[in-house]
């Protein structure tokens, strides 16, 4: 093996880069596997033995060209049926950034898997076929991205090679999609004309579409911002574990360990512990063994407090000047992810942050039809993959934020107490963002290159 770097990745990959988590969504024949295969292949993330395995498997199936979908379909059942049945996570890197790709299935019945992928994603790529334009499935994908408040959405208009690489085809689709997404409250839409099969505008700029002046898919993934303006975030620390060494060296150390869910904390900050409401100040912050003055989302830290007050796993530490109200009545939008339906009167466990409490489903006021965003009133139950509004009463007060304010402290899961099944993904508060107020006409050019 040579010690001379041969890949463009080598030298700069050794320095710290940032991490982008993103998800893909697309219907069965929109070319999602081809896009993922192209991203992995053209960014040189597919290694020789993996490609050989795909070539071998393709040949044994009698296929002439290597089927890049075999790179991503990992289970026997998936290969047998030629479909993706579950979220898979892929990893690739460029000199600028590391990527975690949640590769989610496009089938309608796997909405829950899209929700799973989108829940941790900073960006979603939604594919459409240039020949078909915006279809019902596209609207469903956009609605899920909006519901999950994925900060950035990329519309990849694929198969431009089959649409003559025509600007007008792309422009019409981009305009229709952007109008719809804006109505849903998606803050940032970037439309890119591509051909995943031919490689146009995926990693390399297209030679066929010189009318397009924007980034390729990969360029956009490399440069989209991943951090937030913490000045506008409520600081939140769900307490995971109390660290008490009780050793000769640290006889009195008592630290509250957790991953900062939002915002930042500084030594000296007055803080309140919820749900008890006791107040104190931060006397120290340990960042995995190293004292620091300030820590921020999503660092895993240990907070030391001035007063010896009762704090345990499940509590939430917040700035005293910015504490959420606690409540036992939660209204939320949920996606039901289990096979058995969720019904009014269902007794469940609710996990929010690090706290799990008993809860009961009091009401299901409506079910959402994703295709046209219409509401079906009082559906009585939510079946697998249904999205609806739910009212829940909890046995203990919880400090919940609106999901719009914090994806971490505004989310929860419902669990079946009898067998531990994860039933439902919940988002507190309003489901879709209000449409943005009308912008200046000059600034409103329909879509964002």
């Amino acid at each position, binding site marked *: *093996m*040579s*010690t*001379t770097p041969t890949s463009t990745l*080598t030298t700069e990959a*050794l320095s*710290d*880069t*940032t*991490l982008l988590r993103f998800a893909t969504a697309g219907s069965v024949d929109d070319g999602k596997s081809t896009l993922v295969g192209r991203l992995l292949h053209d960014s040189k993330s597919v*290694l*020789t*033995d993996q490609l050989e*395995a795909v070539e071998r498997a393709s040949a044994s199936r009698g296929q002439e060209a290597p089927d890049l979908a075999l790179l*991503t379909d*990992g*289970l026997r*059942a998936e*290969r047998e049926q030629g479909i993706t049945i*579950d979220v*898979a*996570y892929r*990893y690739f890197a460029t000199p600028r950034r*590391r990527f*975690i790709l949640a590769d989610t299935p496009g089938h309608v019945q796997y909405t829950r898997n899209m929700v*799973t992928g989108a*829940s*941790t994603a900073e960006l979603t790529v939604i594919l459409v076929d240039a020949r078909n334009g915006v279809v019902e499935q596209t609207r469903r994908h956009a609605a899920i991205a909006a519901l999950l408040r994925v900060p950035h959405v990329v519309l990849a208009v694929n198969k431009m090679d089959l649409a003559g690489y025509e600007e007008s085809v792309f422009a019409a689709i981009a305009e229709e999609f952007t109008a719809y997404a804006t109505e849903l409250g998606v803050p940032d839409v970037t439309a890119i004309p591509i051909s995943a099969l031919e490689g146009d505008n995926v990693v390399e700029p297209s030679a066929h579409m010189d009318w397009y002046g924007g980034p390729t898919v990969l360029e956009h993934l490399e440069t989209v911002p*991943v951090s937030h*303006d913490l000045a506008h975030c409520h600081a939140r620390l769900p307490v*995971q*574990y109390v*660290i008490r060494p*009780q*050793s000769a*060296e*640290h006889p009195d*150390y008592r630290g509250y*360990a957790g*991953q900062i869910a939002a915002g930042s904390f500084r030594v000296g900050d007055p803080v309140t512990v919820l749900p008890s409401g006791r107040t104190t100040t931060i006397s120290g912050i340990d960042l*995995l*063994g*190293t004292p620091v003055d300030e820590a*921020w*989302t*999503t*660092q*895993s830290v240990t907070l030391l407090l001035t007063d010896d007050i009762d704090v345990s796993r499940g509590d939430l530490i917040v700035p005293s000047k910015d504490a959420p109200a606690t409540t036992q009545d939660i209204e939320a939008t949920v996606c039901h*992810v289990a096979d058995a339906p969720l019904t009014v009167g269902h007794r469940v466990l609710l*996990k929010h942050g*690090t706290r799990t409490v008993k809860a009961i489903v009091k009401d299901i006021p409506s079910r959402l039809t994703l295709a046209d965003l219409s509401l079906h009133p009082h559906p009585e139950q939510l079946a697998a993959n249904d999205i609806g509004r739910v009212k829940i009463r909890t046995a203990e007060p919880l400090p919940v934020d609106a999901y719009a304010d914090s994806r*971490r402290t505004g*989310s*929860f*899961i419902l669990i079946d107490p009898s*067998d*531990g*099944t*994860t039933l439902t*993904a919940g988002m507190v508060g309003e489901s879709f963002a209000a449409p943005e107020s009308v912008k200046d006409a000059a600034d409103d050019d329909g879509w964002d290159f």
Partner: protein
Amino acid sequence: MTTVARTGEGTTPGRPDGPYALSHLDALESEAVHIFREVAGEFERPVILFSGGKDSIVMLHLALKAFAPAAVPFSLLHVDTGHNFPEVLEYRDRVVATHGLRLHVASVQDYIDRGVLRERPDGTRNPLQTLPLTEKIQSERFDAVFGGGRRDEEKARAKERVFSLRDEFSQWDPRRQRPELWNLYNGRHAPGEHVRVFPLSNWTELDVWQYIAREGIDLPQIYFAHEREVFRRGGMWLTAGEWGGPRDSEVVEKRQVRYRTVGDMSCTGAVDSDATTLDAVITEIAASRLTERGATRADDKLSEAAMEDRKREGYF
């Protein structure tokens, strides 16, 4: 020790992510620590699978940081195939002593001696690990078992959850996995069931090596280039030894090699290398056109779904 500089103030000017972005290694480290602490908070009897390989060494390092200055609240479990590299056993015992940890050992050789397991014709003991592992989990009543598996290793592992529920037979059913949403891990399980936990799910081989370099973590010497007596079998360099190699026509030679993974000697291959330092290893891996398992693991080549099939049975 770690220095957590705000990116943007560091060595890469002009990065668009602003002062509060975490570097990819800091983000992965923070996520793994969160996972360790969730398990400590929710389970009664967790254990870390420890092979002495780089992934389990990184897991232990993360666990030490997660609970500092207190001790790690988990014990270790080594599945001893009986064909271990001596340097790795020495490393294991040293680490256990240094940190005052408790070590459980499940021994494949014991099972063979008792006639419960039979040696395979190909001499590979990796598939034989599953029974001792799962019986140990049952007899010690472990309810959470940390594994160093990474999703980038293999296509079946790419489908694995961070918290992976196993039934009373330790079986994995990929079609009946719990959706995993946000960072809200669900550890509920019935008596007799347990949860496999993978804190390094989102790490790649290169991430692991970069982290080892950044943190200055000590590794067994077989990860670095050294002279070794090896012979060729199935396209790989295997270490000669009492475990059963070389056979008749196989020729032993001395070569400068190193290992990318550490497992059973009978199925873990070495690669030709002159990388004697961490920096050289990282450069070599970044330039390699072969995956870690493709280069050095015979057991994954048994069939297209070898890993999936073993995982279904209870392998980690």
